């Protein structure tokens, strides 16, 4: 269905999304928004896998499965991460990443 779109364009989209996610991770001070950044990055990777399946190895659906599992893991990771955030929030009443620096040097 996408034979008119060159693969490079798709990769541009995914890479951009990946780095936008990275940007979010690196700049947002709220831990939850950082998590959003990570989710974007993972999502970009997912698209990558699927795209390669369809464009380069049309006879395979390995990338598709990979993406499937990544989604599941992302969910698990998010669950644990959020549990930890909330625990932190209980302890220090904040989920600002710049306040999470009691240990350094």
């Amino acid at each position, binding site marked *: 269905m996408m034979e008119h779109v060159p693969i490079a364009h798709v990769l541009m989209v995914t890479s951009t999304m990946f780095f936008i996610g990275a940007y979010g991770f690196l*700049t947002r001070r709220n831990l939850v928004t*950082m998590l959003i950044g990570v989710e974007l990055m993972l999502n970009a990777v997912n698209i990558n896998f699927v795209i390669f399946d369809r464009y380069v190895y049309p006879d395979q659906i390995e990338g598709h499965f990979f993406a499937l599992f990544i989604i599941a893991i992302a969910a698990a990771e998010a669950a644990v991460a959020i549990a930890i955030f909330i625990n932190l929030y209980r302890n220090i009443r904040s989920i600002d990443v*710049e306040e999470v620096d009691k240990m*350094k040097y």
Partner: protein
Amino acid sequence: MSYVLLILALPLSVFVVNGLLSGNLPHRLAGWLATGSMGIATVLAWLTAYNYFFQSSSYEKIIPFRITWLRFTETLQIDMGILLDPISVMMLVVITTISLMVFLYSMGYMQGEKGFVRYFSFLSLFSFSMLGLVVATNLFQLYMFWELVGVSSYLLIGYCYDKPEAVAAAKKAFIVTRFADFGFLVGILLLSYYTGTFDFTEITNPENAAVAGMTGISFMGLSVLTWALILIFMGGAGKSAMFPLHIWLPDAMEGPTPVSALIHAATMVVAGVFLVARMFPVFSFHAPEALDAVAFIGAFTLLFAAIIACTQTDIKRILAFSTMSQIGYMMLALGVSGYGSEGLGFTASMFHLFTHAFFKALLFLGAGSIIHALHKNDIREMGNLRKHQPVTHIVFLIACLAIAGIPPFAGFFSKDEILSAAFASNPIYFGVAALAAALTAFYMFRLYFLVFWNNERTYEHTPHESPVIMLIPMIVLAIGSVFAGFIPFGNFVSSDNQPLHTHLNVTIAIISVMVALLGITVAWIFYKKESSLSEQLSNTFGALYHAAVQKFFIDELYLFITKKIIFNLISRPIAWFDKHIIDAFMDFTATVTNWVSKEIKGLQSGQLQHYAYIFLSGVLLIVLVMIFTNT
């Protein structure tokens, strides 16, 4: 003739026994043990001399004992052995005899001293070392005993170790001679490197091609051999207190007087002369320049010491300078000597060494007898002692006459030969020697008159004559001082071991006696009675006199070099450098590490986003670098 080994073994064993048991041995036993052993050794030495000189016609070198002690290379090795030839046999006799006398004398002189046993132990060590030195078969053995002699001298000078002066003197003596030995050692290394041997019989063999070959290699204008010999002579000069390495000897008089008699008058200090004599064929055949140096140093010291001696007031120091001066004679004689039939100087030197041993030992023992009675050293505080110590007076007078060269006393004959040899070589040397002879007579009789005549002083205790045990050795030595001169020395000792017939040179004899008498007369005028003449005279020569009293400031010069230059300008800077540069550099690396560690701590800021930032940039950087390097 293996009993010769016993001559060495006896004092050595006394040293070991007395040394190890020094706390537990009764004094008398220890003393008699030492003296008795030395007595036996003396008898054996005389026996050896008898056998050597009278049982065979030619004086070949005999090696009755030799073992390998240490092997350096296939050819270079140190042997321990005994070499008998005329000079070593002569030295054996001199050393044992003087030692015996001093041992006997010390029994009285040192009675009641706390370190009596230790004293005899050290004294025996000295005798052993000195005997080992003279019979050494090779240069290295000689060097070893040379060092041992040095250390026993150190120990004996520092015998009164709680006296700071004695300690300083001992230290000085050791260090100065050590410095000289440094030259000696380098000389030995140089010589042995080219000849491939330490052995005297090989080195002194005039036909030795290796030795001759050394003359072909030159270094800074002189042949290597000359350098080697000059360096070896440096060792001799150190031990024999030749200018400028003489400064230790006057201070060495801090040791007990019998020690001065034995070591710093009769035996050890002539080791340098012996060394040159031992190496004489090499000097004579291959390195006349080195021999010239010997002569020059000898002559200079001869006069130099004599001048200083005239101004000193410490009885032992006067004798010390006199010793230096007399050794100067011996060196001069060697320096001007030829080989074989022209070897008068050599024989004269040895002869003087022989006679000098007797009268100088006697002088010291006499001085000891006086000090023993007065507990004072300054001759200005003595006077009119002939009343109190008649025997000492007589023997002292004999010794003075002997050293002044008045016939028929021993010194006359030997000195006459030296003057003849010097005259034959170079008139200047003769002039120096003659002048020194006059000075010798002057300062000896200055001493004699001041001590034994002049005015009676007030003494704390009335001086008394020394005990018999001290007098006997003095009398024996006095007899020696009278008669030793009559020995036809050239028949026994000569440069090529062939009898050398010497005869009295009448002209020179007359000149020498005249100058000696002149000296005595002046001394008589100045010092027999209290008079101000001497002061007037010293005032006339103001600066010179003052310089001579201060021993021409050589000590100060040395002090300047050691204290100011070596200590302040070298050692301290090195210590500083080590602590503040090298050490600091090592510490610096640690400091830098710590500093870097502190500076980069910001990397670990605790900020999660910084970490991720570094993570991402790390990844990208590696990719970038790898893409660049791999394409």
